[in-house]
């Protein structure tokens, strides 16, 4: 060993990381510009940095780590995005994952954040078309399912607490939604498609059609379901902090129709949301202030 040429610890770590995270494997990693900037001698004489064993060359030993890096993270993405993968096909999915990981290497100790930018990455990088469009929407749902799985716990409002909100208080009452709720406005009927995949395997790629999905956790179980467009708009308004009155006005207010029918629909939606445990708190604003 030539001590004068022994790399410093931080250089060696940066170099090894650049090599084993290289998407084409260890040898392209050793020859890559970032690795050569750190340890130029490694590209000329790799054994001066990493020793071979009796059975393996230096590059084969580095490749063990390079292989494990992608294998481990791919395994996680495969687990988190089963239907996205089914839509794209295993090979195209893996290609997309490798490009994603090369572009967005993990920056978090906790792996549940690994793929937070994956749906947006797919939206930017997949070739245009219905298959990709559906895949992006399904990926958004699958990511939301990951997030609500880990979301903070919150006690949902009981039916009695709901019932206690008098109609006269609607101008002043805001509802807090649970942290484990995501609202997704989608371009494809992605939730329906996921149900069909669960049911019989290989459904056709549907035509584009706007859909409105919610993903939420009830207890420790994760659910997803579609909402009617107006229902979704109302829930989104409530989740953004509008009072009950303002939310209703903003989502269904301008519509012509039978007032009784509207009241019946509102009642049904609130019962559905309450049963799903989507609200965790009631905030009553002091009287006198009204939001328009």
């Amino acid at each position, binding site marked *: 060993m030539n001590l004068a040429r022994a790399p410093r*610890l931080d250089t060696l*770590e940066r170099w090894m990381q650049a090599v084993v995270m290289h998407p084409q494997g260890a040898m392209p990693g050793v020859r890559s510009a970032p690795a050569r900037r750190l340890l130029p001698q490694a590209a000329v004489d790799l054994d001066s940095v990493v020793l071979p064993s009796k*059975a393996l060359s230096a590059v*084969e030993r580095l490749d*063990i780590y390079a292989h494990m890096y992608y294998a481990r993270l791919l395994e996680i993405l495969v687990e988190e995005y089963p239907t996205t993968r089914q839509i794209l096909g295993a090979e195209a999915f893996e290609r997309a994952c490798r490009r994603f990981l090369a572009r967005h290497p993990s920056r978090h100790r906790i792996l549940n954040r690994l793929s937070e930018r994956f749906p947006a990455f797919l939206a930017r990088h997949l070739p245009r078309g219905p298959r990709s469009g559906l895949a992006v929407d399904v990926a958004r749902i699958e990511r939301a399912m990951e997030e609500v799985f880990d979301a903070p716990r919150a006690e949902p409002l009981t039916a009695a607490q709901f019932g206690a909100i008098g109609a006269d208080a609607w101008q002043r009452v805001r509802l807090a939604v649970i942290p484990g709720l995501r609202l997704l406005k989608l371009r494809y009927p992605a939730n329906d498609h996921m149900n069909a995949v669960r049911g019989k395997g290989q459904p056709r790629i549907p035509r584009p059609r706007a859909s409105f999905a919610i993903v939420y956790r009830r207890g*420790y179980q994760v659910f997803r379901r579609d909402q009617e467009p107006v229902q979704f708009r109302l829930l989104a308004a409530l989740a953004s902090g509008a009072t009950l009155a303002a939310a209703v006005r903003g989502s269904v207010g301008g519509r012509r129709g039978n007032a009784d029918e509207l009241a019946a629909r509102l009642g049904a939606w609130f019962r559905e949301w309450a049963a799903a445990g989507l609200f965790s708190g009631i905030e009553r604003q002091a009287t006198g202030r009204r939001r328009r």
Partner: protein
Amino acid sequence: MTGASLPNRWKLPDLGLGVGLRTQHFRHITEHWPAMDWFEILSENFIDTEGRPLHFLDQIAEHYPIVMHGVCLSVGSTDPVDFGFLDKLAALARRVKAVWLGDHICWTGVAGLNGHDLYPVPYTEEGLRHMISRVRIIQDYLERPLVLENPSTYLTFASSSMPEEEFIARLAVEADCALLLDVNNVYVTCRNHDLDPLAYLDAIPYEHVVQVHLAGHTDNGTHCIDTHDGRVIDEVWQLYGRVHRKTGGRATLLEWDANVPKFPVLQQEVGKAARFRNGTKIVTSAAA
């Protein structure tokens, strides 16, 4: 096979025989409260989440002693120490009343990235000084000894100036940290680096060892990979027996993380350690 009784420096208890807590067994454990002396958890699986796993862990921690073992502390990294992460570890340790907590003698990422793997440090004087100072900082902050495990390694840096076991021994003594001796990793590392596992074991300062890991691995002929996907091989059991003779008994844990079998298979496999431990079987059944 009676051995000398050599207590560890902190008088941390020999917890008996345990297994790594895995999601697949949450239901079985909370429905049957099976006989098991203790569980080890992967710390990162219960941080930044308030989901189902934590819900089960809370219940399990009421019934069994819990030890926290991490993979992301990155003690050997040249990045700054992440005190926010230490706070999260400490909070989890309080929550589950962790008997001890630890990680690996390795680094997992640098320059803000994370490879989610256990990368070897060069076994140099510089590497050793760096690890010692980091371990001291972390121990001072957590106000408890850090229990650090020898990882399985697959490469050797040309700049290394001492064998792994010497690096570990000096780290333990000079940083005054505790060791988790993974005898399967000793086997795998020695196979991969053409070293003698018995010489490796003989260099370990056993008063610093508080825990032992057992696991299966994959033998690829040219090298072994620490896959934790099967039973413990005979050679590794022999190493375990040797450690037991040197220590007189340390908390023993079976790791089985891939192709995870049903819980009784784990009980049976870790139970094999009893023949090296003067016949001491798993004693605790939490079904009280």
